[in-house]
């Protein structure tokens, strides 16, 4: 895990720019936060902010089951409003 410490304000500011990149990664492949982090080359702690923000605003939802390692997978969902 990287501990590159960016301030929260700066991390969440990137949510809009990361959103389409994350949605592209999730196309047909629900993923855990570490998997998304690897795909983006970004720290998982930052990805948590982006994914949870996207979840809050209706872009992703979690799958029911947790992986053996203890992670939820997140999948893209169609949003009604753009």
């Amino acid at each position: 895990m990287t501990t590159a410490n960016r301030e929260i304000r700066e991390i969440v500011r990137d949510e809009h720019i990361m959103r389409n990149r994350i949605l592209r990664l999730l196309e047909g492949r629900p993923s855990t936060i570490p998997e998304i982090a690897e795909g983006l080359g970004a720290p998982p702690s930052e990805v948590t902010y982006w994914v949870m923000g996207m979840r809050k605003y209706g872009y992703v939802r979690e799958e029911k089951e947790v992986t053996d390692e203890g992670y939820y997978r997140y999948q893209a969902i169609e949003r009604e409003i753009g």
Partner: protein
Amino acid sequence: MKDDALNRVKYDALVIGSGISGMESALKLGDMGYKVLVVEKEASVGGKMILLSKVFPTLDCASCISTPKMGATIHHPNLTVLTYAEVETIERQDGGFRARIKQKPRFVVETACTGCRQCEMVCKVAVPDEFNADLVSRRAAHIAFPQAVPKKAVIERQGTSRCTFNCPAGIKAHGYVALVRSGEYEKAFQLVADATPLVGSLGRACYAPCESECSRGNLEGPLSIRRLKRFVADMHYAKPRVAPETPPANGMKVAVVGSGPAGLTAAWHLARKGYEVKIFEAAPQPGGMMRLALPPYRLPIEVVEQDIANVTDIGVTIQTNSRIEDLEALKAQGFSAVLVAIGTHLGAKLRVPGEDLQGIVRATEFLRAAKLGERLEVAGKRVVVIGGGNVAIDAARTAMRLHAGSVEVLSLESLKEMPAHPWEIAEAKAEGVTFRHSCGVRDFEGDERVRSINLLRCISVLDEKGRFNPKYSDKRAGTVEGDLVVVAAGMRPDSGEFGLPINPSGTFQVDKGTLQTCIPDVFAAGDAVAGPTMITSAAGEGRRAAFMIDRWLHGQAMDVEEFERRLEMVDKEAVLARQSTYRELPAGAPREAVKLAPGEFYPDEETMTEVEALDAAARCLDCGVCSECNSCVDICPAHAIDLKMQEQEIEAEVGTVLLATGYTLFPADLKPQYGYGKFKNVITGMQMDRLLAPTRPYNAVVRPGDGKVPDSIAFILCTGSRDETLGNPMCSRICCMYSIKHNQLIMGALPLADVTVYYMDVRTPSKGYNEFYEQAKGMGANFVKGRVASISEKDNGNLLLRYEDIENGTVTETEHDMVVLAVGVRPNDEAARLFPGNDLRLDEFGWVGESNEDVNPGATNISGVFVAGAASGVKDIPDSILHAGGAAAQAAAYLERHGRPATDAAALAEKLAAEPANGGAPAASTTETGPASATGSSTAKAAGVAR
């Protein structure tokens, strides 16, 4: 705010803060028949309690027991609640108190907002969500939390973003940057087009005053705001043109004279309002200076044509080769108003001997001929350009491209003083242009044609008042040989024939705010009024002219204030102070000096790629927070959003004041040995409460560091409490109990997880608390008496706790997935600041002091001011409610003893309702309830305000 705009109201009691204590005091007083004004600084009532998961020791759901009280507070007929408002000062007055209150603008009309959240869903600005203890983002447009009361959106605006504020055209620069960041390029284009149709031209040739003010300029360099505009323009124009919807005609015709940025922008706005607009243009091609002067390597003709097509596509007609000088004749053609926007197309003369020799031309004529493709005998010639501004540089670089043998620029100014942009000078130099500074022309020599120029040394350009008034030394400063001389020494409008009053510089005299001339239906705008400026300024004045002409023709007041109304520019230092560290994000490649071969007319910079554009937009600091991108305005089904709403001042006369301002939490980063803020899986007790709440920020209790469901969670009690080193010797009373609550809830939510609590003491002082503690132990929570000395982080995000095991006397290290710091509480110092001169006495720890806690709880040192709940010292929920009830009784007794002011609770609702700036709250509904007020005044429910 002006005094006459002040809303003056009278209440029996003012309650500050609407947490559980404030609500309790207010409700009790209301039930007794007193008129109470409640002021809450957040956008919802409810305080901290509504954000909790469950309450100890009953494990009742915090929302389920808070929301009825929140609803009752808002709907109580004797209570008026102002949310998103702040008390600024309280002073004693005639036995009572006078409070000044600031109602912050929500930018959402409360009575119209239905709480649908669509604005949030489309908002382009993400910031940390303080209501979720910063575990997730929220939007600039937001409803504080799902159970907010009132459930109304608020838009966070801290001012006008600096780029937007400094755009003369009125383009919401921050807005389009934010739209690009979200990948919404077409919307970004349309947002620019809302201000001016010249999206492509400004994207290429704007001098970008926005960038000079960009806050990021204080870090690695400003955002490339202009190039982002070019990017969205190129994206838009690359698509097939779609016929725009033409607005329904309003039956009126307006004539515009001149098709430069001012004329085109005015025509665009007027046509969008339904006017039939015709532009008359003297030149053979439309576009003004953009078409006739700006060299194509900076602004290609196709781009200007695309922008002009925006205007003609919505029905504006342009008649070229039509020089207008007779305004009466235009009016006779049925035009209800005329806008004169003829620019500055006459080159200023130097007034020196020999100026009429052949081979001496004005820069405007030279550039125009080059742009219109006329034959210019430049090849191989020695070209001399006279002037130090950007026009001179454009002429020099154009001559270079027309194969001049040599090009020299003579300027009055030294290199440092030259008005031309430094990068333009650098580019010209890189192309081979040479410069001679601090010299003026004495005379030109030659027979029929110019042969040489005799120079004088210029010692100063401006006089003491900063006006252009060059001074020369007597000595000659040499002679320059030249075959072609281009004079770029200023420009003025060809304004003589219009019969309108003009200034000595030839510009038209108009009312600066409305742009109306002395003939009421004739307006003038752009450089013809201001003198030579830039495209964006001329466009902005064209927009102003359209606004005013529309008002004038509809018989409405030409309201300059309304046209110009906006929030103040956000302060750069304040923006930068929001973060203490910044990741370095270098600005796009610095402008490279381009080396075009002579004769090559291609653009001197490339359009950004999509990746470059996104990276550039990602550097934006969201200065004003809301970007004014208008996405929320466009989607709101209730049309509730008004980004021009204003702050209001309220002055309340009250008989008594109750301070219910609560407490603040200990900032966990003050214990650096625990790594809060550094180690992602170290969180605070409040964050754990959010993770466990039904409205939690995540889908489950998972680690913020990587989303893993934790197997082993440690709690560290007394973080920041009973700690002399931090100046807080007091026990915070609630942290043991909330941690035990967390233990029980976690063991319910994650049955397989291990829970370990590191403690020095567990304090369980009230009814049922000890049983609750025993129950947690019985469920499997492991209580370790030990002092944690430090925490370190492993590569997998797990945490190593080093602690002294008091029972075994050993120093031990254990590993956990996640650590919860049971942070203590601190006094909220806001209450004391309300009383000028520090009249309010605080106790030795900084809490609001009670004059005699033992026998007179709630009473402060100021007679008539009471403290309710945790503002007087940390209390859990039941104790807070009890204390707040007591404070209400004290306040009631005080009012009975000292008499009640003549209340006029209805007035506030009525006043705010009459003021559309606050969102046009409807007239107050009046309900009589409870015991008749002592003064017999009517009771009121401030509907629309008190929600």
